[in-house]
């Protein structure tokens, strides 16, 4: 995995996805929005919590990244999972090494990484599709301009994003999901005239 899950700049927070039953981290990232989205996408398998690693008393940069996060767990996370726990990153007391369990952890970690890669890719595509349109999008939300193709275009991009995430949410096989999204993107070429450019 190319993204080791460090913060984008020194001193910025580092987040992690914690699986409470496996009692270990599955992914780390410096991007809160992205890591929450991966946590949401994992919910079709199981529920995970997003924690802020630097809230741990023994945190230091370079302690955990995506090459080793599955060997670590945390102490002091919630005793009872509440739906509201899933909407903000939780503080933890300590980071500790995780115990050995009789479960194919790597498969779960690999799935989280797979989702993470696609979350970045989908976001990248949609950002490129609306590149340089920020001012136009703002003006279109302020005025009801007649027959603006821009609104329709933005709707289409949002639909593409939603459909791709839906494929990921319901998928249980990486190869199959890869194939499904790629063939879906093929169809999108007909909807977005300059798709090939992104």
């Amino acid at each position: 995995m190319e993204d080791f899950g460090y913060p984008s700049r020194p001193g910025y927070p580092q987040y992690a996805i914690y699986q409470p039953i496996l009692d270990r981290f599955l992914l780390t990232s410096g991007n809160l929005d992205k890591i929450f989205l991966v946590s949401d996408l994992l919910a079709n398998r199981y529920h995970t919590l997003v924690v802020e690693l630097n809230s741990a008393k023994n945190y230091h940069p370079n302690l955990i990244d995506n090459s080793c996060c599955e060997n670590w767990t945390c102490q002091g996370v919630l005793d009872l999972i509440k739906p509201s726990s899933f909407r903000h990153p939780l503080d933890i007391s300590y980071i500790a090494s995780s115990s050995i369990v009789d479960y194919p952890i790597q498969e779960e970690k690999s799935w989280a990484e797979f989702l993470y890669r696609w979350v970045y890719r989908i976001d990248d595509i949609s950002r490129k599709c609306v590149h340089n349109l920020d001012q136009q999008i703002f003006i279109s939300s302020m005025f009801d301009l007649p027959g603006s193709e821009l609104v329709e275009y933005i709707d289409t991009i949002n639909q593409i994003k939603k459909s791709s995430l839906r494929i990921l949410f319901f998928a249980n096989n990486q190869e199959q999901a890869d194939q499904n999204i790629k063939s879906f993107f093929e169809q999108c070429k007909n909807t977005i005239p300059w798709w090939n450019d992104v």
Partner: protein
Amino acid sequence: MSKIILLNHSLLTEHPEIMELLLSYGSYDWKKFFNTQKLFIHEARYSRTHYNPWPFRNEVADLFKQRMPSFSDKEYEFGEVTDHRISEILDIAEGRPWAICWSGGIDSTVMICSVLKNLEPQQRKNFAVYCNHVSIWENPRFFREFVEPNFKLIDSFRYEKVYENFDQYLWIDGEPADCLWGSAYRYRISPQELGRSWRSSLDTLVSSFIQRLTDTQSAKWFCERVIEDIENSGLEIDTLSQFTWWNNFNTGWIGTNFRKTYFQNKISVYHIMENFINWYDNEAYQQWSMWYNLVLPFESDYKKAAKQYIFDIDKNVYSLNFKTKMHSGGRKGRHEWLAVLDDGTYIAKDDINTVISMLPDHLNL
């Protein structure tokens, strides 16, 4: 002349006039009683055995068949009891369609699995599932494969909707499942410790979640009341897990079963209890619970038998291995009553004078 049979304990403390009346009964330690109310997520604390360690009379246990059955010492199996529950509810329904309250959690998913397993599509064709986005989020795959294709959906975003459609369905709720399982997880005692004798682990008990929700003195006082209750139960309650189970099974049961009545004060409580069935409130489940908690060794995998029952239907390995207890997102609303009377009516939440005039007769002092 009517009398109070049920009090909303958590609302009492909001009214200084009511507290003043109770404190005039100086012999009772009301402060510790109310300090420990937070230990009960449901708003009433009544014993359902003939020994009553709490300060309010528990006639409600007789009026609504809430007494604990005698332990038959016969082995019960969770799956058999769950399959059998269907025929009991069919008898109660008398042909009415069911509205099943589904939170997405383990207990309510068991109910849906039992319906799908034991009833033909023709028998359940008009059944509805009452759920919302949080329910779906809790178990998306089950919703997609089993709920959506088989049931009409009623949005449970507002709990009042139950009462807007009340007589159209027989409503089925997943209460009081947590009282059957014991919910030892709430005490935040490690699984290893839960198997130990409570007699030699009183410090663990006091320092568990009891103390975290109150203060040390109140926590000790509370444990003494439960011990009193256990010693009068006639059952062999030895371990910490059995201690915590007993507290929920005896004292949490009634409050949990009446929980659905709190959000209105118009429909007779008798009508609500007849038309809104608590799936797990029957003799067989209670016998199973006593067998499971008193005879079988402590099982650290919470609600394992229920998860296995679900797995037999949905074949979802993730759900079997990873599904855990979550704080239910359902049933939010404003409490509308301070007390329930034996004629089925209510004393509204702001009618303090009526409560004050009737409260002395409800005291068990």
